[in-house]
């Protein structure tokens, strides 16, 4: 690959990174905190492309043809793949397939301390990880007597019953792991996996096991549910 082509590839990669990080697209792949670094890296890639072209065009005017054979890295062609991934394909955030592959994340964040009371509101919005930790490690003390609203996607549970799940990221989707909550009562039925739903219900002391890693999976007693559009930030 000659230097002009390399400049084009760097320009495309930088542009793709900038486009993804200036919008919401990057949230499908990494944590929100990476945004400023992605913008900086994208800008540097564009600068490197522009400077390469600048020196290339300048030296074309000043020096004569000299046949010095440098081995310009051919492996660089592969950098077109992430460009295509971001600009053409833009794959969706991890969903129920990934949730079924890995065990529930609950064991990771076990601080069996006092949980602060839930904020006011009826129903009150609770994150899946928050609900699961309060249910399992606090025996639901801070949850009882409240109407709770949880948002996540539907994923098939071990017994075929739908569960509510959400992926938890530390850095990027490669380390994404699911948090799963079982549903009893009037839970969503006949809903395709990966459908985003909002369920309203109450704490129940029923706890199951994730067959993948034996982690505790708390349940929610559902009283109502509705389909919703996926949130911007799909990970917890």
């Amino acid at each position, binding site marked *: 690959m000659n230097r002009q082509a390399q400049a084009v590839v760097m320009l495309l990669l930088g542009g793709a990174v900038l486009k*993804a990080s200036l919008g919401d697209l990057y949230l499908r792949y990494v944590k929100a905190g990476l945004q400023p670094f992605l913008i900086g*890296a*994208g800008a540097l890639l564009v600068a*490197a492309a522009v400077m390469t072209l600048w020196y290339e065009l300048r030296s074309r005017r000043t*020096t004569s043809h000299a046949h010095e054979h440098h081995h310009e890295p051919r492996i660089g062609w592969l*950098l077109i*793949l*992430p460009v295509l991934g971001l600009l053409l394909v833009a794959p969706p955030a*991890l969903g129920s397939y990934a949730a079924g592959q890995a065990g529930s994340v609950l064991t990771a964040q076990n*601080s069996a301390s006092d949980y602060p009371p839930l904020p006011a509101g009826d129903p009150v919005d609770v994150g899946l990880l928050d609900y699961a930790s309060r249910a399992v490690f606090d025996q639901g003390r801070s949850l009882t007597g409240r109407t709770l609203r949880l948002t996540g996607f539907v994923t098939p549970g071990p017994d075929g019953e739908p569960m509510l799940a959400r992926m938890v990221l530390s850095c990027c989707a490669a380390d994404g792991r699911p948090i799963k909550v079982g549903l009893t009562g009037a839970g969503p039925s006949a809903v395709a996996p990966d459908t985003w739903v909002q369920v309203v219900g109450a704490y129940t002391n029923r706890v199951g096991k994730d067959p993948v890693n034996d982690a505790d999976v708390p349940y929610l007693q559902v009283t109502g549910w509705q389909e919703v559009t996926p949130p911007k930030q799909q990970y917890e």
Partner: protein
Amino acid sequence: MERPPAAGGPGGHDAGGGRRFGSVELLAVLLVLLVVFRNPLASLISDARLQTWTTVFVSVLVQAVPFLVFGVVLSAVIAVFVPRSFWARALPRHPALAVPAAGLAGVVLPGCECGSVPIAGSLIRRGVTPAAALAFLLAAPAINPIVLTATVVAFPGRPMMAVARGVASLVVAVAMGWLWLRLGRTEWIKLPHRPDLDGLSRGNAFWAAVRHDLMHAGGFLVVGAAAAATINVVVPERWLSSLAGNAALSVLALAILAVLLSICSEADAFVAASLSQFSLTSRLVFLVVGPTVDLKLISMQAGVFGRRFAVRFAPATLVAAIVVGTGVGAVLL
């Protein structure tokens, strides 16, 4: 330095000389084809496994791009703006002492392992003894404050996990540096030919180094990301559960899992924490192996130091990380 002619020049696919079909033209045709066939291509990956593969592949790269770019820029700064004599003054003269000094210097480079490979390559080019540069390469992603803090957060109530991780990783890095002093041969390292920077203006030399390392290390990073995404989709976690009961097997299983998954060192503690069926020692081995040997690193090391280097260095590091990780785990956990 004489510059080669630009278009139709000595690219990968064209003979030098006049205006033939060069890599810019090839790139243009490729991109037009891809845009034209966008929809059929997108529908090809509607399958859940392929879609997950694509998501993980793109995520690994998006996550790594800032570290790669900043690492490459830092290595270009080292190549162009830091005088050769600086390293002779900064590191102890005796190579055996330079190794632990360079390993400890890894504390100051926060971030993932993607950035440290080109930096280590740049250090060797500037005359730092390879043993010290390799100790730095292994230590930097594992013992910096961000990674150790993440480990503390991921293992609440078990601060010894972070201590054990820091100690074991530093020991592995220094041991591999000293091993290289005893057994390593300079000819195993073949740094990729980088256009000679000496005759160029500083600005030109800086951007030439950035461009070259980005294209080179970045290309290999793509290989590593593809391998990691494949493993992520192909190996379901439940296969592992049966191994957790056996002490020796669980250490080996998590060591190999760390190599295959290629997770960033800032994130691997959270994954280790959720592998709750496994013993703490085997999870420590996971944390010590991951930042020093994984598919992404092996492919980048092969790209930056040559294949002859990678086939020796990666297995030796893996063995060292398993032995040291198990030993430190047995004592501290």
